């Protein structure tokens, strides 16, 4: 079988190198001898519901709105999530997949509704290195990433946080948690790109598609994790 990885709207939701998440997923399968391919899902075509796994990334104002409208008009991602296909949502994608988000100018934009979260602007942007301890089964290693977002996200009762923040802000200044997990959706504000820095998260997503995976020793990835986990957060 060939695992098909949906890279959702890279033309508008790829602000922070988030296309890299799809590359990491594909390569971690290929390195284990499993065929995999990336399917770019762009604004000029509907979102297919038949793919095995989906990733979405960050976006800036206009682009985020275009993406939200497209996902609502062509609800393939929602159908895929309903049948349990893993979905990774990074940064602005958390906001897009929530009930609604409020823009910097105070306008409320209706979201996709896959996550029980809402987002409103914070007084200042959260920018910098983040470290967080995972709170979900299947993850034991600390998460590392870079955050850069104005929106502050609050979880409702149906969404659980992904991790407890030990450095940086995460979802909202003062809340001490990052991300949202609900059904087959895992969301986080950490980019960098997220799966390059957090191979355990990549394999957790992949194992939901192909079953248990053999360990993969990549010394440079281990070195990168040591460097980034030790990196200070600049004031």
């Amino acid at each position, binding site marked *: 079988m060939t695992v098909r990885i949906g890279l959702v709207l890279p*033309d*508008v939701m*790829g*602000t*922070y*190198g*988030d*296309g*890299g998440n799809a*590359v*990491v997923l594909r*390569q971690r399968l290929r390195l284990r001898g499993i065929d995999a391919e990336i399917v770019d899902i762009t*604004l000029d075509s509907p979102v297919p519901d038949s793919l095995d796994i989906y990733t979405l990334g960050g976006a*800036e*104002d*206009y*682009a985020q*709105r*275009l993406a939200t409208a497209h996902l609502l008009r062509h609800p393939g991602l929602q159908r895929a999530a309903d049948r349990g296909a893993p979905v990774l949502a990074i940064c602005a994608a958390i906001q897009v997949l929530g009930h609604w988000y409020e823009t910097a100018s105070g306008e409320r934009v209706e979201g996709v509704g896959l996550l029980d979260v809402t987002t409103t602007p914070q007084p200042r942007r959260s*920018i*910098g*290195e983040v470290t967080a301890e995972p709170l979900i089964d299947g993850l034991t290693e600390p998460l590392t990433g*870079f955050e*850069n977002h104005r929106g502050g996200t609050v979880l409702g009762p149906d969404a659980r946080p992904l991790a407890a923040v030990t450095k940086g802000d995460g979802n909202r200044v003062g809340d001490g948690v990052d991300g949202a997990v609900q059904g087959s959706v895992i969301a986080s504000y950490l*980019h*960098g*790109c997220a799966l*390059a820095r957090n191979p355990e998260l990549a394999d957790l997503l992949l194992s939901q598609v192909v079953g248990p995976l053999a360990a993969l020793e*990549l010394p*440079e*990835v281990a*070195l*990168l994790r040591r*460097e980034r986990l030790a990196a200070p957060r*600049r004031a």
Partner: protein
Amino acid sequence: MITARGRLALAAGSIARRASKATGRGAGAMIGGLIAMKLDPTVLGQLAAGRRSVIVTGTNGKSTTTRMLAAALGTLPGGVASNTEGANMDAGLISALAVNKTAALAALEVDEMHVPHVADAVDPAAIVLLNLSRDQLDRVGEINHIERTLRAGLARHPGAVVVANCDDVLVTSAAYDCPNVVWVAAGGSWANDSVSCPRSGEVIVRDGAGWASTGTDFRRPDPAWWYDEDFLHGPDGLRLPMRLALPGTVNRGNAAQAVAAAVALGVDPAAAVAAAGTVDEVAGRYRTVQVGPHSVRMLLAKNPAGWHEALSMVDTTGAAGVVIAVNGQVPDGEDLSWLWDVNFEHFVEPARRLPVIAAGERGTDLAVRLGYAGVEHRLTHDTLAAIAACPPGHVELVANYTAFLQLNRRLP
């Protein structure tokens, strides 16, 4: 005309500049200008009065285009002042004009966000808009905000000739309402920041070189100037052979805009092209340096668009190695996620023939990126050591901003 207060301010700045140079603490441009500006905030306008100035701005290519423009303007009588040290905010501009008070012309590289108030001060004869794309991810405001700021600034100078790149959607939006625009098809390889229309928020559709907004009447204007591999084409069937000392398609676009601006100021087109073609080094970039048994060609890339351009200039034919150096200091931006936007898969094939080495303070980030791109590589954080690790011969080096500066300081 410079006022008494302006003269005092400039004298104080000049003393500081010489002191800074003498003590080896810097090239002096910044400190001299800063002091003069502090003592007389109107000094920039006083220095520019009576000259014909051209402002050059955009995310990438500012220094190169300004150098080419200064060379072209140099074919006119009267002399040219220019901020060749690359200090492109008020202090650097004041210094550049202060050291060359008699020059009748000025070629000024200006930071994008500083263009509106610099234009108000110097009342430019022309403004060159190159391109707008994301710069350092963690520092700079949204690109649409920069475009709107430029648009508002240009509206206050209806008399200036705006030389704008119509292949860049954001630049076109900034210049679209100006009464006096010379459109140049200078190229735009990085479309990622302009999928949405800056004037309506709707989608931009592309068809070959053309593009149009689906939300409002906003589309690519027909260019007056364009280029191909051999020629520069201009108004009224003008067609001039264009040979440049600098590599890369992007520099042909820069030259086209420099020539168009020079011609707007009265330079003979053929003389302008010839002058732009002589520029062979810009602040250490593009030069080839001998380092022991290695001749190293130095390419700088500051942001995603710059990396696309620089990687397209890397010539692995006959090279003994490729060294790519990445830092994550404040001027570089601390967030290196953009590494995942750059098409390093380009090096899969060359890496089978020659070493590709990841270097710099954030070399590990790059090594992981190369690894997932399937590019055979090594990791040597010290850039000079990485060069030394290549077999003797020619090395192509690409570095981001502080990695480039650090290496430049250690080279002959």
